[in-house]
């Protein structure tokens, strides 16, 4: 009964809000009660004026929400490739044996539920877990060394590993703490822009710098801002895509955890350039620490007059709100992310129309990756030419890559575009663990390179010429001890778990692909041909980028290592 009152109080606080408050209220209820019951969902329905069926559909869409009671503590254990290499299977087995459950089950005493999870973005500290404690909240736990520390709720410290050439993102020393506003200093680039530059000049400088999006699609950032500013219909929105869920990618988490004000300043510069009154940061639900740090940073900036009404005494006003995802990789796709903020199932929309004219709430919107926005303050302070001193004509400046797997020093590296993959791995990452066999670039949506193909320069154009992609900047290294079929199997599970189910090729294809990858050790005759047909169909006929890349790694492995797919090998 007391619980019902607490839930009632939570929902009551949302009186007067609209559908876009659905994710926040569901998060609060889920955290308080461990699930969302029908009665509370009905009061949410009445409060926000959203049909109850729609609320149920939203709960069912996201991995971190439940419509039935689970254990007091729910532990999500990552079983994707990097954690797989770090021995997560035996960790999970040990945990389950100790508790007497299988993955997906709850202990008889109701204390623990153990679940498999897709990549948690903690690959440099693998193996990783996310711990959700009823009535308390969520925290990440990595590396998972033993069941005991995981179960007793302790939080191992994880020191950032950031290396490379620090120019744009990590000037100065290796970050080992969260930078406060006092340490970050004034938002000097924003101040300069608001006092001395027009919105046009801001986007023109970013365009001149040649900055292209770092979220994977590689669209020129300044051009996006110019289009958005010019689009009719108010208000405009600036959105930061911090959904970072591509397996093997963790650079955005490291940026948010260590340099939250750099991101806020970049986001406000974007908002100024596109003349947005409102900004959102959409952070994946599996990043509780980053979300808390960003909340604190917003409060600090607000009290210092750096965001909110009449920023720095000028006419420019912009609020920044955080939205936490509910656990769905697809919500990193920009239009699915808008749907999620709007309180709907995270289905990608059909494009065109594009976000620059019809984005969040159907209004002109610029959506940018965390890293993209973090590059902007330095460009505005130092100029386009300064940024262009690194990199190539087409890939300007520096780039963050997330390296995991069989290297001596996994972590985030800031590199000048043009460095070769070998230089990154043998130099910055201190070399391989064991004999390298394959490198997967671009995450689960990327493609494999053989160990003899790693002299390729890390540029958008260089990797494209090599038939692969930089994507989100994920680099996963596998040595010769690894059975690549195991890696493929994990990738297959990832996509089958994360397909939104909207379009048939991917909804069906990711499942059929997973089933075949599960039996690679003993394939049925014709399986390679089946994988090829599924893969090409998903690549060519799917609605969004998820399905279009869900077979990329498999198709590249089919080309490079056909023997992996042959019976009896």
């Amino acid at each position: 009964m007391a619980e019902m009152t607490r839930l009632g109080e939570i929902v009551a606080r949302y009186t007067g809000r609209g559908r876009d408050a659905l994710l926040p209220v569901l998060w609060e209820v889920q955290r308080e009660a461990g699930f969302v019951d029908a009665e509370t969902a009905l009061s949410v329905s009445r409060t926000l004026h959203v049909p109850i069926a729609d609320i149920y559909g939203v709960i069912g869409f996201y991995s971190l929400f439940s419509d039935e009671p689970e254990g007091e503590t729910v532990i999500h254990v990552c079983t994707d490739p990097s954690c797989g290499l770090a021995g997560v299977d035996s960790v999970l087995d040990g945990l389950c044996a100790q508790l007497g459950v299988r993955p997906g089950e709850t202990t008889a005493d109701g204390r623990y539920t153990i679940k498999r999870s897709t990549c948690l973005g903690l690959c440099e500290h693998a193996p990783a877990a996310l711990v959700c404690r009823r009535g308390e909240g969520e925290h990440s736990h990595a590396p998972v060394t033993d069941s005991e520390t995981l179960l007793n709720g302790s939080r191992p410290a994880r020191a950032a590993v950031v290396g490379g050439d620090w120019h744009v993102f990590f000037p100065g020393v290796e970050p080992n703490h969260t930078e406060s506003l006092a340490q970050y200093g004034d938002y000097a680039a924003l101040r300069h822009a608001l006092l001395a530059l027009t919105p046009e000049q801001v986007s023109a400088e970013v365009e001149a710098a040649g900055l292209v999006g770092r979220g994977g699609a590689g669209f020129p950032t300044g051009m996006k801002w110019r289009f958005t500013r010019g689009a009719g219909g108010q208000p405009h929105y600036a959105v930061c895509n911090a959904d970072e869920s591509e397996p093997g990618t963790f650079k955005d988490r490291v940026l948010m955890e260590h340099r939250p004000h750099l991101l806020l300043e970049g986001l406000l510069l974007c908002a100024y350039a596109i003349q947005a009154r409102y900004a959102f940061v959409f952070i994946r639900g599996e990043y509780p620490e980053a979300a808390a740090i960003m909340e604190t940073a917003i409060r600090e900036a607000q009290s210092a007059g750096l965001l909110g009404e009449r920023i720095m005494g000028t006419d420019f006003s912009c609020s920044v709100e955080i939205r936490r995802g509910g656990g769905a990789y697809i919500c990193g796709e920009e239009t699915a992310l808008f749907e999620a903020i709007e309180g709907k199932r995270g289905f990608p929309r059909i494009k065109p129309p594009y976000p620059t004219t019809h984005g969040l709430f159907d209004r002109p919107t610029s959506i940018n990756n965390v890293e993209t926005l973090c590059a902007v303050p330095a460009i505005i302070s130092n100029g386009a030419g300064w940024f262009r001193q690194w990199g190539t004509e087409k890939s300007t400046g520096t780039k963050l890559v997330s390296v995991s797997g069989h290297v001596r020093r996994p972590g985030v590296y800031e590199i000048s575009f043009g460095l070769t993959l070998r230089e990154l791995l043998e130099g910055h990452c201190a070399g391989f663990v064991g004999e390298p066999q394959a490198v997967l670039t671009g995450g689960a949506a990327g493609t494999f390179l053989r160990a003899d193909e790693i002299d390729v320069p890390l540029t958008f154009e260089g990797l494209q010429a090599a038939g692969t992609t930089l994507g989100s900047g994920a680099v996963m290294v596998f040595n010769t001890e690894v059975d690549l079929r195991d890696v493929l199997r994990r990738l297959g599970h990832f996509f089958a778990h994360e397909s939104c189910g909207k379009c048939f090729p991917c909804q069906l294809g990711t499942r059929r692909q997973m089933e075949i990858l599960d039996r690679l050790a003993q394939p049925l005759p014709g399986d390679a041909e089946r994988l090829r047909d599924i893969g090409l169909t998903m690549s060519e006929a799917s609605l969004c980028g998820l399905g279009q890349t869900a077979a990329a790694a498999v198709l590249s492995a089919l080309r490079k290592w056909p023997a992996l797919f042959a019976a009896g090998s």
Partner: protein
Amino acid sequence: MSDASEMITLTIDGQQVAVAAGTTILEAARSVGIDVPVICYHEATTANGLCRVCVVDADGGRLLQPACIVPCRAGMVVETRNERVERSRRTILEMLNSAVNLAEAPAIQALLDDYGAQPDRFPAAEKRDHALIDDNPFYVRDYSQCVLCWRCVQVCAEDAQYTYALTLDHRGFETHVSTAFGVPMLDSSCVFCGQCVSVCPTGALKPKIEFGLEQGWTLEQIWENTRFLKKNRRKSG
């Protein structure tokens, strides 16, 4: 955006076609008698480009284009049935057949034949099995026959009825149509308008009378099982 009254010309399967700007590739093809297959598309519902059996090759682009939603562009060269198109359509149909009971979907059966889809292309594939739901006097629901065209959900919501009794639960392959918290239809906001039943392209939604006849019910049994008031009265007293 181009002016809707403006006429544009494109080539479909080698044929010059003139259409008003904004016309979809599907409409343009149909206007000259070229048949493009569809599953999810329905004149009365918002097209969402779900099934993708309508994909065509436009200008040899990397991606095939869903004809039901993509508007024609001037000078576009469309091939509605080349090798790439056939592979995608056939594979989608084979995968659909491996997941869903299509026994009562004759139009899709005809497509399987037309595209030479092998019925057993995906051995050891998990089917989407669901028990038949018989929870109201008007219709039964057998979601093992559901292809997820979304039409029922759409007509129940903004496409017609604004009743919002239905939603989609879970995601990916596990997606299925459901009421809120899976309650029986009588406990949902359903007003039994029957629009969902009328747009369902498979045997997933079926009038109770038709279902009763198939089961060999007597007239008396049909009468017993399909009367709303009578059943309710009995429940309350």
